[in-house]
């Protein structure tokens, strides 16, 4: 058995760890177009901020590949997959054979077709370690920075550079920041907090055109900048899978074992679609935990074991300047909103189950809510008063609690 993995981030590492749960010996080859030992992709903003050194960027220890009998081909691009011959072709036209292949090619930043963007010399994405390094290399204390996109990536980039420069403007087409995870009320709380840290927001607006150092907004306003960070979204890297003839929608389509439409090929991470159990819809859930867990399931199944991935939901934990938020699920349903001190909480119920939540400030024990969503626990079985007040194990009945917490040791 000969395993081949395209990609070297969370989904790929999950697959290595999955394979090794079942098969401790057969060789694994990992091909990555990036030149680095596996690193925590979301750590790049912390690195840029100076909170993490290079050596702490690594997602797994230095001896990870050696310990797991992995051959690593870094800085190498796969150009094609031949599913009949079971080989992949590399940039240098050489071939590598596989018995089981994992496609963990991730996603790439979307570049909006704005006139003039191509002539902006200092434009960056914020997806890779090298992106962060490139920004750090030219960022100066008086740099004027324009960030296009007030999503998770754009705002983390903003936080990452505030210690260096204070001239940061974020522009987004949406009427609020973090539109994919927050409603208007919650977004306001985070926006105010970030504005206190001197980050300027221009919402309901877009850049209509760029010159080499100015951006003209649809409102007519012109902004000067020294560098632009483009963070308007990501696009899944599905071309290899598509050209090989695998079933691809927006992302690569998988069964519950994370297998593609070809019996020898699995896929995981940002390049795939998952079933969001809160809506029953297939969608791309470009989240690190999702990537790892899909990768692990794929790895176990590639090695002949059995495991399924069936409890996917959108979920995010993120913080800006010390203010934390945790969100999960979807928000279509009946909402219960509570405010206290500097905290905000919204629980959304539909069809007698918890479908989603947002917590800002006090996020203690949020995972208990996450588990209610993932397990689709009927709220009629729960103590509603306790459920609304705070996440706690007490809200389950005794039998469920004992089952969850390990049962009571019976002396008899």
């Amino acid at each position, binding site marked *: 058995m000969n395993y081949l993995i395209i990609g070297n981030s969370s989904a790929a590492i999950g697959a290595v760890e999955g394979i090794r749960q079942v098969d401790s010996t057969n060789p694994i080859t990992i091909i990555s177009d990036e030149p680095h030992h596996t690193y925590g992709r979301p750590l790049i903003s912390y690195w840029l901020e100076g909170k993490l050194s290079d050596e702490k960027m690594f997602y797994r220890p230095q001896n990870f590949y050696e310990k797991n009998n992995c051959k690593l081909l870094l800085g190498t691009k796969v150009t094609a997959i031949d599913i009949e011959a079971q080989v992949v072709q590399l940039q240098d036209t050489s071939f590598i054979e596989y018995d089981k292949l994992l496609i963990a090619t991730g996603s790439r930043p979307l570049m909006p077709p704005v006139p003039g963007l191509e002539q902006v010399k200092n434009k960056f994405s914020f997806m890779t370690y090298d992106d962060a390094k490139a920004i750090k290399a030219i960022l100066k204390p008086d740099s004027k920075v324009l960030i296009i996109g007030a999503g998770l990536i754009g705002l983390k980039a903003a936080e990452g550079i505030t210690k260096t420069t204070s001239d940061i403007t974020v522009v987004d087409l949406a009427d609020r920041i973090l539109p994919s995870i927050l409603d208007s009320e919650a977004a306001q709380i985070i926006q105010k907090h970030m504005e206190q840290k001197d980050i300027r927001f221009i919402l309901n607006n877009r850049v209509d055109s760029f010159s080499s150092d100015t951006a003209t907004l649809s409102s007519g306003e012109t902004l000067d900048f020294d560098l632009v960070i483009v963070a308007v979204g990501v696009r899944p890297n599905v071309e290899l899978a598509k050209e090989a003839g695998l079933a691809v929608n927006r992302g690569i389509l998988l069964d519950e074992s994370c297998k593609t439409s070809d019996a020898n090929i699995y896929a995981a991470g940002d390049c795939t679609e998952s079933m969001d159990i809160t809506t029953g819809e297939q969608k791309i859930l470009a989240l690190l935990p999702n990537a790892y867990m899909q990768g692990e399931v794929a790895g176990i199944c590639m090695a002949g074991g059995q495991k399924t991935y069936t409890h996917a939901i959108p979920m995010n934990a993120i913080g800006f300047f010390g203010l934390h938020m945790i969100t999960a699920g979807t928000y279509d349903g009946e909402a219960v909103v509570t405010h206290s001190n500097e905290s905000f909480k919204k629980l959304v119920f539909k069809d007698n189950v918890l479908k989603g939540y947002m917590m800002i400030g006090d996020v203690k024990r949020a995972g208990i809510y996450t588990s209610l969503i993932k397990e689709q626990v009927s709220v009629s079985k729960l103590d509603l008063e306790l459920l609304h007040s705070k996440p706690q194990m007490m809200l389950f009945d005794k039998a469920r609690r*004992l089952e969850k917490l390990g049962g009571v040791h019976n002396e008899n």
Partner: protein
Amino acid sequence: MKKVYVNEDWCLGCHLCEYYCSFANSGESNMIKAFNKGKKTTPRIVVEEGSAINFAVQCRHCDDPLCVKGCISGALSIQNGIILVDDTKCVGCYTCVLSCPYGCIVTDHEKVIKKCDLCASNSGTPACVQGCPNAAIVFEERS
């Protein structure tokens, strides 16, 4: 593997386990010093109090831990069955808080995150178990 379990019928809700946990993680050799001037550190075990029932909850050291799988930095890992956090790698994103179905990742202003390590740095029985006056918290092997 031995883990900590709580018999909720015996738990008095006295919170002594929280104090023993704080003490064990204070780095002090004596309890008076550890709690001097009200500087009790946040415990890694939490007592839930109800009208008729109380119980303490701490990390279950799951075999299939969602906190470790979701960790964005590789700070959480399983070492000999015990789930540990490497403080020097953790950035405090709280993805583990989002993931833990038992609510057992503790957050405060003292550290990026805290969690029970079964008193791994000491040997023998965890401090919460040793300190429980009613033997409601036990350290034992269960299937």
